């Protein structure tokens, strides 16, 4: 698709706030006056299953990111991040939250979560993988549940989202209030500063 469009995949596990993150990104894009379509698939489980949300910004109709065309992948959990890389390409920007939620399929086989080296090997085919500890950032901001907002902040600092920090702040204000809002605003700015060498530029600040 043309460069004017942005294709984002958000992947994680049910209960991690993947859909909420999708709506915040979409709302931010709306605030910037862009057209957005978002699609969510939950599967059968209320919690604990794989969840992916596709967000497409630009002149598009179908809500699903075409195979190989993801510009940005926001992974909330390591295995789920890698699983969604299949829909990216070598140039896809990836933010991978260092959260490891072992699927029960492992324990049933008396196995453990793949170790760090193995996970790194799996992402070797992609140049721009940024690993961040979003849960810690969230905790520092006041609540580990704000990890999703921290991930959005990090994505913004990479210059891969076609809207400004202030658009996300407006989206957060639309979504939350009171203490939760404060925590999320803080998580956003901490996330924004979390990737080394990615200092906020005036353009996206």
């Amino acid at each position: 698709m043309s460069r004017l469009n942005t294709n984002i995949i958000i992947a994680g596990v049910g209960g991690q706030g993947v859909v909420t993150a999708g709506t915040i990104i979409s709302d931010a894009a709306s605030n910037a006056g862009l057209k957005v379509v978002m699609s969510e698939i939950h599967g059968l489980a209320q919690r604990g299953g794989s969840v992916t949300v596709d967000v497409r910004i630009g002149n598009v109709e179908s809500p699903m990111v075409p195979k190989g065309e993801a510009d940005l992948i926001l992974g909330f959990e390591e295995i789920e991040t890698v699983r969604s890389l299949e829909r990216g390409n070598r140039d896809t920007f990836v933010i991978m939250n260092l959260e490891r939620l072992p699927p029960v399929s492992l324990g049933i086989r008396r196995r453990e979560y793949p170790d760090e080296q193995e996970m790194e090997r799996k992402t070797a085919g992609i140049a721009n993988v940024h690993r961040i500890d979003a849960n810690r950032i969230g905790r520092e901001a006041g609540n580990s549940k704000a990890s999703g907002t921290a991930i959005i902040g990090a994505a913004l600092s990479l210059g891969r989202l076609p809207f400004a920090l202030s658009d996300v702040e407006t989206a957060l204000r639309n979504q939350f209030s009171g203490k939760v809002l404060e925590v999320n605003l803080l998580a956003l700015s901490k996330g924004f500063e979390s990737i080394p060498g990615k200092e906020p530029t005036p353009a996206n600040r």
Partner: protein
Amino acid sequence: MNRMDRILNGLPGDVMFLLGNEAIARGAIEAGVGFATTYPGTPSSEVGDTLSKVARKGGFYFEFSVNEKVATEMAYAAAISGVRSFVFMKHVGMNVAADAIMSMSYAGVRGGMVIMTADDPSMFSSQNEQDNRHYAELAHLPMLEPSNPQEAKDFVIRAFEISEKFRMPVILRTTTRVSHQRTQVKLGSRSVRVVDAKFDPAKGDFVTLPSSSMGFKSELIEKMELARQYCEKTDLNRTETHGSGKYGFITSGEAYNCLTDAIRKHSIDASVYKIGMTSPLPEEEIASFLSLHESVFVVEELDPYLESGVRRIAQMHSSTARIYGKIDGIFPASFEYSPEVVASSLSGIINIEVGNESPPVSVADLPKRPPVLCPGCPHRATYYAVRRAARMSGLSDVIYSSDIGCYSLGTYEPFEMADVLLEMGSSIGVGSGLSKVTGRHVIAFIGDSTFYHAGIPPLINAVRNGSRMTVVIMDNDITAMTGQQTNPGVPYDGMGQPVKPVSMEAIVRAVGIDNVVVADPYDLKSFLPTVMKALKSEGVSVVIARRECAILRDREMQRKGERVVYAVDSGKCGLCMNCVENFSCPAISIQEGKIAISPDLCDGCGVCAEPIVCPFRAIAAGE
């Protein structure tokens, strides 16, 4: 204004970022709906979740009905009393409602009636991907198919107008990618309709006996002919041109989105006839579209519904256009489409380049994450106990018959306790048949909502005809899988008002079953012997496994500010692995050779601490 208030009271021209199903709810509100009913089912559930929250403030009636058939009958009653009514369901729910729909199309309506079906191509959360557009043809009813949330909202209003114009129910058909798509939606104005229900039929108006139905049938055919004439001119259908417009395309619904993206990406010279009203088909318009193109592609998901119509019309009009679709094998006959699927199907005929790059990483050896029951889910305890009870009772050839709900996940490892699972209520119907035909002991699993929905007639049948089976009703006090909706066993109704719950045990006893017990699966040590006792019974026995859904319990605990988390004492743990291998709560895993419980995930149910799960008594409530 919070989100729900905005959906109810948002001003015309306001732009909201809405889920397709929320947009549909808003459409019903704008149309001045007076009466709305449903049985929850993905991907339609959020329509009901939205309407249930705003109904009282909005001044209309809403209910979660016991099943789709009754929901449709309730809505019909409103429509024949002049009140605009809206009933919505998932695609397979329409099978349950079909008996009612087939007759109400004959008798027709007074006030507008819209029947929404949400189809599920690729079966993300369903047992099949049936194409419900066939129901429009079968019942002789008009049908609208929106492609996105904006159209979904607007089409609801149009559907009401068409319904009142022709005095017949109108079907609104969505699919998962329309119902579960979010995008900006511009709100319209709310029509103020103050309609007092008035039921005053002339003799026989709503009686479908042969004497009157013969007249109804001829009228129905006439109405559909008038609807076709309307469809020829309606702006619900439109043509869009890309480039020279050389290739013709006929499409509808989500397939339109995929096609449009493919056309833009590959710069295809296309003329696209997008049909928004897909029953009855605009025959003359289609014939003239065919006459303008040498090649016409029919692009639609699931069955060749449009394509069959287009080929019929081509034949009748002696069209020479070459038609491509699924019947000739150009497009796939199953599963949802994507822009890539459309482009690669076209690439055999139109000269376009479709990339075939292999993915940058291989995910084949990645651990799978099949859907699981929540941490603390009472169904996990029930399955664990029933499996042990069957083994301890020496029932080696027991048949497990399961049903539709969260507990369907018992199909997967570690329990694998579903030998047969078809549709709502089938656990008891098919289960009792299996007990008759094989003589083996059958254990049927059915949830509370599913029991009320379709479990009672087969239970009567099982008792009446002497099956030998144990029915485990997994009563978690809510319709959980679709997002915690109320059902007849819950002490509040669809508008949040207190109401007397229907007693499941009274129904079971009234059917003639004496062997019925209520037990708490969290209390494994007494639950297990209870199940064993039930398994001894000669006829039909019923165990009501009663414990609220963990999500409800969480909400309640949060409200009270309570929180309990369990932890493993690795000094005591014997590393038998039973908890991860056979009980498999998602909060428990092996970390660096030890068993660990994630405090973030643990729900504090305490079931894993029972010696039947942890024989070393290594698990206890932590600080």
